[in-house]
């Protein structure tokens, strides 16, 4: 059981890391991109904008905690 927990924790830290909201936001942004492109909208701009917004939000939360 201990090894399964450490294995799961390793992958969680590896992929999700310190801020789960960023990973969740990325999943939503990718999902929206998929839906829009399959509805005929070439939403190439969505993911770069989402990345910057998610990054800024995560940094804002982290630095507000630190200061």
């Amino acid at each position, binding site marked *: 059981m201990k090894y399964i927990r450490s294995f799961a924790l390793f992958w969680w830290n*590896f992929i999700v890391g310190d801020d789960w909201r960023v990973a969740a936001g990325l999943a939503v942004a990718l999902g929206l991109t998929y839906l829009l492109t399959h509805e005929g909208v070439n939403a*190439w701009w969505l993911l*770069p904008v989402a990345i910057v917004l*998610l990054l800024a939000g995560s940094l804002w939360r982290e*630095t507000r905690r630190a200061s």
Partner: protein
Amino acid sequence: MSTSTVLVILGTFLASAVEMVEALTIVLGVGIVRGWRSTLIGVGAALIVLAALVAALGPALSVVPIETLRLIVGALLLAFGLQWLRKAILRSSGYTPLHDEDAAFRRHREEAAKAGRDERAGLDWYSFTVAFKGVLLEGLEVVFIVISFGSAQNKIGLAAAGAAAAFVLVVGAGVLARGPLEQVPENTIKYAVGLLLTSFGCFWGAEGAGVDWPGDELSLLGVIAFIGASSFMLVRVLRRRRVAPAPVEAPA
């Protein structure tokens, strides 16, 4: 050679170099204090596990359709790359201390000196496990980057060549220096790697989701420029915010 090919080689080279510098610091810290035999056997065992992983995963990924692969790889690279970029921005803006390879080396040496002697199967178990875990964990990130970059671009060989070049360079420099590579601008490289991983993740993730990038592969440079410029702006804003004096409360 296309833009994305050059960036794949550069990305795997830089990312692998950073991880290998960290693994080298662990191996040197243990090997110098406790001897090389068990330490190097630990390194060898970890390399065998990593090679087996590449041998198993590489061919398995070739049967996945390229669009699906790009979507999965893009999502994973995005999540992974944004962690690197986030940490690099926090370090550059002064909110997190810079990674100090020399301090890490001293810490590993002290821990290795304090640890008791536990002989198993003719091996110093501490040296073996620390070297094995260090190389395996840092190596897993290298394997992940090589496989994801290589498979999404259908250029595993070139991605592996980038990592191999980093291995030769880091191990060669470590043998020559006989110490941790503290002169390597690790934080700057980590920033660049975070930027490349995130940009590739964005490019492939969106492509896997069905997007047609304007300008095709050339738009990858645009993505790097956009995320790079935005992250530099975030560093500047955070730096200013960090040094700004706290607001003085007006007297009642």
